[in-house]
């Protein structure tokens, strides 16, 4: 490897791109082998779109998580925050006579409020992000129960209409057993998720704010010496993460159409896992939104494969997912250890 690797970015491959390549390769390998060996379900494009439909919210949450992780922080409040957004919107629509627009604003407002408080505590009071978001997680969990403790489906007409929107993808349909053409569709949430992915990809790659995230995560001191406002960068990262959790919460709400305390349970860990599989490192400075996107897809593809293999016992899903996280971590660890030795 060339010596001035870090100065001349185009020589050699950077950590971020290397990990991204591994992730995409493994995802493609997994999906192709699923198509080849399992056939039936996986050959239909709709299976792929269903993965997107089910995980639109997770994609958005994971993107926020990646940003925070790139700056070297963590946010474990996003899962319960999603539940809080769902429950608040549900109560707002059904009991308080709100409409869809105000529900959306409510979701954004909750995300914004969490982001402001958590960001301030992390960035300006120097409290560890883990503890801040742990408190955020507890708070959101408790507040969800205080808002409403029972699960219920939303009966609001406007929302039902919104939830029923299907966006048909041309040329991707399939013919079912009766010989009728079934068009492939995605839910509006998927469009939101893809938009989020594209926008954040651009922001992280080509804007000053985006590059600041990497600089702060890579080395706080050098970032400081470069004249980057470290505190503000951290604040923005946490603000964005919680705001995205608000958006993700509403997308989740559109997908399930109900409010429940147990919604999105463990979503924060799935988001962290997806980010890691996507090549983001918890130590900060390394990561990619595109990788995160493929991380979510890999995670849910492996779940689908396990269930279609007929391993019905509930424990297999979790054990395989854990094994997969383990595998990715080992690959990353070995790659980086080798690379560091070469230097």
């Amino acid at each position, binding site marked *: 490897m060339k010596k001035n690797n870090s100065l001349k970015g185009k020589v050699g491959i950077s950590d971020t791109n290397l990990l991204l390549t591994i992730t995409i390769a493994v995802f493609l390998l997994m999906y192709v082998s699923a198509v080849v060996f399992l056939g039936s379900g996986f050959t239909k494009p709709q299976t792929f779109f269903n993965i997107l439909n089910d995980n639109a919210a997770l994609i958005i949450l994971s993107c926020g998580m990646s940003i925070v992780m790139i700056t070297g922080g*963590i946010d474990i409040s996003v899962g319960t925050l999603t539940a809080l957004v769902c429950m608040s919107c549900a109560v707002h629509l059904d009991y308080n006579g709100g409409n869809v627009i105000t529900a959306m604003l409510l979701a954004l407002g909750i995300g914004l409020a969490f982001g402001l408080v958590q960001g301030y*505590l992390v960035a*300006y*009071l*120097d*409290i*560890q992000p*883990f*503890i*801040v978001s*742990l*408190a*955020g*997680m*507890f*708070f959101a*969990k*408790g*507040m969800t*129960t*205080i808002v409403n*403790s029972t699960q219920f489906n939303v009966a609001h007409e406007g929302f039902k209409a919104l939830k029923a929107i299907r966006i048909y993808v041309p040329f991707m349909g399939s013919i079912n057993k009766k010989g009728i053409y079934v068009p492939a569709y995605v839910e509006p949430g998927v469009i939101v998720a893809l938009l989020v992915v594209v926008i954040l990809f651009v922001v992280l790659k080509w804007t000053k704010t985006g590059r600041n995230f990497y600089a702060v995560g890579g080395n706080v001191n050098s970032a400081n010496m470069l004249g980057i406002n470290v505190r503000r960068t951290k604040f923005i990262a946490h603000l964005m993460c919680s705001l995205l959790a608000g958006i993700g919460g509403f997308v989740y709400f559109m997908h399930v159409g109900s409010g429940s*305390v147990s919604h999105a349970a463990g979503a924060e*860990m799935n988001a*962290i*896992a997806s980010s*890691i599989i996507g090549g983001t*490192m*918890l*130590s900060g400075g390394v990561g990619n939104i595109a990788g995160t996107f493929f991380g979510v897809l890999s995670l849910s593809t492996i779940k689908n494969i396990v269930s279609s293999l007929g391993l019905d*016992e*509930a*424990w*297999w*899903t*979790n*054990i395989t*997912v*854990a*094994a997969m*996280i*383990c595998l990715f*971590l*080992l690959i*990353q*660890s*070995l790659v*980086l*250890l080798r690379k560091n030795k070469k230097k």
Partner: protein
Amino acid sequence: MAKKNNKKGIGSIFAGLFRNQIFIPLAALLILVVFNLIADPSFFKITLGQNNAGDPILSGNIMTILNNASELAILAIGMTLVTAASGGQDISVGATIAIAGSVILRILCGAAGPRPETMQAPIIVAFLIACVVTMLFGAFNGALVAYFKIQPMVATLIMFTAGRSIAAWINNNQLPVIKDVSFGYFGNYIPGIPVPTPVFIAILCMIIIALVLKFTNLGLYVQSVGINSHSSRLNGLNPEFIKFITYVIMGLCVAVAGLIKVSRISTINYSVIAKDIEMDAILAVALGGNALGGGKFSMTASILGAYVIQFLTTTLYKFEVPSDALPAYKAIVVIILVVMSAPVVREKFGQLWKKIAPEKAVKEA
């Protein structure tokens, strides 16, 4: 530093106390005690009653706190070491407690099916096997962290995800029930002794760790590895091994906590047992004022932190806060505590105190 403070008078001693690590959990405990004293002094009443079996037992809120905080205090011991050495937290403890409990029940049931009339193996054997199993899982986490250089939270995410499923797998997803009363001694009361057994187990663990820290170099090594693993290597330590060993110790703590947990109810619920206890254990470490980034630690402060959390929980229950809404109140208290203990805020407190202090110092002189 201490000498300087003594010369400057009482104001500076207070300022110094603000910076002392044990101040935070102690102050929190004191606030809770005072709050309860004002709100309802009967909170502290301890009565001698009888349980269903006719044995004398002490009951009261204080006993509840001491009893229920046992597992947390035991876990806080392991978590403190893990945090100090590796600069990260083990989030898999809840899941590995499920594994420990599952292993214990599996051994006790043996081949006799999930509801045996008698235990098929001595409890001590089951417990020791559970210790070995959880220490192996601890070793797995430790190896990932120490030798593969994976961040602790991420490395333990693996067991966090898989643990409860493995626990269910061990018992084929059945729910074993142990009918023998002697199995319940570890989580409840031993006949004739009015204090719940977990309290004794927790005290025993604390004594052991206190002796270990006093008579071995474990504490020193852990701190030096946490502060700077490179320079501790230059001083002849093996940082990888020390990180590794803290995770194995954590495994041992998990086995003890697991025994108490399953003994309390004589059965297990894989998805509920010790749920979110990892978060409370980390909170205990943080409330103890320990840096979550590793380095110096205070075991006493961590254990005190564990009791503060339980004290808070019991206080909230006393005021009839529904158990599901509990986390919200807990979060508010946690935020207040961490904001109070944040270096930036404490610095300002210290400055404020110094402004008031000179007058007092003059008066004393």
